[in-house]
């Protein structure tokens, strides 16, 4: 009997590759032209889950909250070895801040049933908040280990990890169940397996038929596979709408500005020996360099 692992993933715009064209004239981001990717640290988290599965035995359920197009990140998880995938999607969740997001994910985790480990990336590159993981742990009333760089030991009852801190690192042990957030340094995520890509490349998400849940088989071995990605709405996870989307989000955006470099009177110099000598001399004269 392996461990039950829930792996949380997020689809994000690729903020590393934002070019001028991605900025609209009003200073907001044109998300539509940005490539959507799986949040990098979530892939590090999935990799750790897959290593547990290989070394210890585990059933991995990947969950994402997002628009219907976010099904793409769940396929990425299935391609790499996740056993099951759930898409939480509903317009009721639009404009959620981290608190409302963690509420919706908590409700979804409740619906999944039991788990031993929840594992996700430390933070998503679009917001860099690192809040959703710890907020889910709080809502579930379970322990958390954040900034994990290495899983050192795992038993049926507890887990030992190395955690990065600002002054070094620490080795921590926690009883299960526990929520882990993983950072980039942990590993190099594997590539999709060709066999699994063939199996799942055309998989779609759809609402479950309530009268037939027979296909859910928690002892799923590598021979069994899922036929579709489960799609859950706010009603499906029995979410209180007062806690969802804008209603459930205490933080509001007052305004957004695009960043413009401050113009300065730049003194342009040539790379001649004379100009550089003069510059160094000026800096010494002003005691900026000694």
């Amino acid at each position, binding site marked *: 009997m392996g461990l039950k692992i829930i792996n949380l993933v997020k689809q994000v715009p690729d903020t590393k590759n934002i070019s001028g064209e991605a900025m609209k004239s009003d200073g907001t981001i044109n998300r539509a032209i940005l490539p959507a990717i799986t949040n990098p640290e979530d892939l590090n988290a999935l990799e750790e889950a897959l290593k547990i599965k290989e070394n210890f035995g585990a059933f991995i359920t990947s969950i994402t909250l997002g628009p219907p197009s976010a099904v793409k990140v769940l396929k990425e998880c299935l391609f790499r070895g996740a056993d099951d995938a759930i898409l939480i999607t509903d317009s009721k969740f639009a404009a959620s801040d981290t608190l409302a997001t963690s509420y919706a994910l908590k409700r979804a985790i409740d619906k999944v049933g039991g788990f031993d480990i929840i594992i996700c990336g430390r933070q998503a590159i679009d917001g860099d*908040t690192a809040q959703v993981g710890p907020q889910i742990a709080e809502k579930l009333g379970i322990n958390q280990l954040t900034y994990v760089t290495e899983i050192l030991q795992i038993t049926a009852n507890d887990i030992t990890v190395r955690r990065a801190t600002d002054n070094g690192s620490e080795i921590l042990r926690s009883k299960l169940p526990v929520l882990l957030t993983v950072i980039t340094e942990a590993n190099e995520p594997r590539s999709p397996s060709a066999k699994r890509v063939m199996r799942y490349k055309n998989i779609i998400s759809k609402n479950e038929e309530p009268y037939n849940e027979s296909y859910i088989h928690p002892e799923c071995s590598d021979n069994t596979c899922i036929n579709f990605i489960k799609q859950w709405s706010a009603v499906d996870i029995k979410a209180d709408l007062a806690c969802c989307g804008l209603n459930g989000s205490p933080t509001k955006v007052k305004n957004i500005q695009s960043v413009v470099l401050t113009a300065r009177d730049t003194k342009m110099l040539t790379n001649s020996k004379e100009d550089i000598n003069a510059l160094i001399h000026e800096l010494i004269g002003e005691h900026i360099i000694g």
Partner: protein
Amino acid sequence: MKTNNILVVVEQNNHKIGTVSLELVCKACELAQQLKVSVDAVVLGHKMHDELKILAAYGCANIYYIDHPKLAHFTSIPYAKSIINVITKYKPQIVLFGATANGRDVSPQVASALKCGLTADCTDLQIGDYEFKGKTWNNTLLQIRPAFGGNIVATIVSPESSPSMATVREGVMKMTEPNYANKVNIIEEKCTLLDNDFLTEIIEITYEQRTVDLKNAKIIVAAGMGVTTHATLNLIKELAKILGAEVGCTRPVVDAGLLTWEHQIGQTGVTVRPNLFIACGISGQLQHTSGMEESRRIIAVNTDPSAPIFKLAHYGIVGDINDVIPKMIQAYKTKL
């Protein structure tokens, strides 16, 4: 008992109060003056009485201190529950945390339990008004932070939940002069934690001395992606050495494996304000410049005359760093 103040959650490591916490106290004092309230601190630890005085020197009116052997070192749930207890008791209107690994671990737990807003990694905090649908909130905390990889700056408010909470990275807020004559008012709070709140067992703690100190450097020579070889990097290191400078860099240089992350300046690295910043082969992407634009003097060296870094620099040299840096080294050596 005074409520409605600003509370700083103090970070301590190995019984020593973190610089980020003192920076937060300084910023909190500035905000508190506008709000006409005082600044309080909460400290969790063991045998730290002597260390607490410095908080008063930087302007804390009340220091809520919970002393317990099991709180000597950070763990998530005991820290979260203790902080929640202090917030519930003293009802501050603003709570500030350092955006450290521990601060970013515990603050979302607190926000989730209190169902209040939390803004991560703010680069500025202000007091101002917020209008929405004909309703106005006066004197609310404006939480200013970059988003989308630093390409936008968002002002976030959370006026309908209390307290307003924010985290701030080390080195972002400026320190003021301490006044050691300030009265130290330590209020001991009881530790009400139960055995089953201690769910994390600490097996080992490793402290690694930081070998790079960008934050306190007076001069920084920084490498961007114009530095693609170790030979060029060695020139940068040589210039840094003779100027008594630290070596900094942009994120792509770290990603390329040329320098370690301790050298990284910018949004995902440290924020620096040296007297002199020499940008070598740095194009001037916002992710980087947000962490160095407040340098007092900026010299930019780049082969591309249209590189955005030249808009920010006080002195611009269009040229190859392999050509310019040896000339700088030569000029400095002969002027001595």
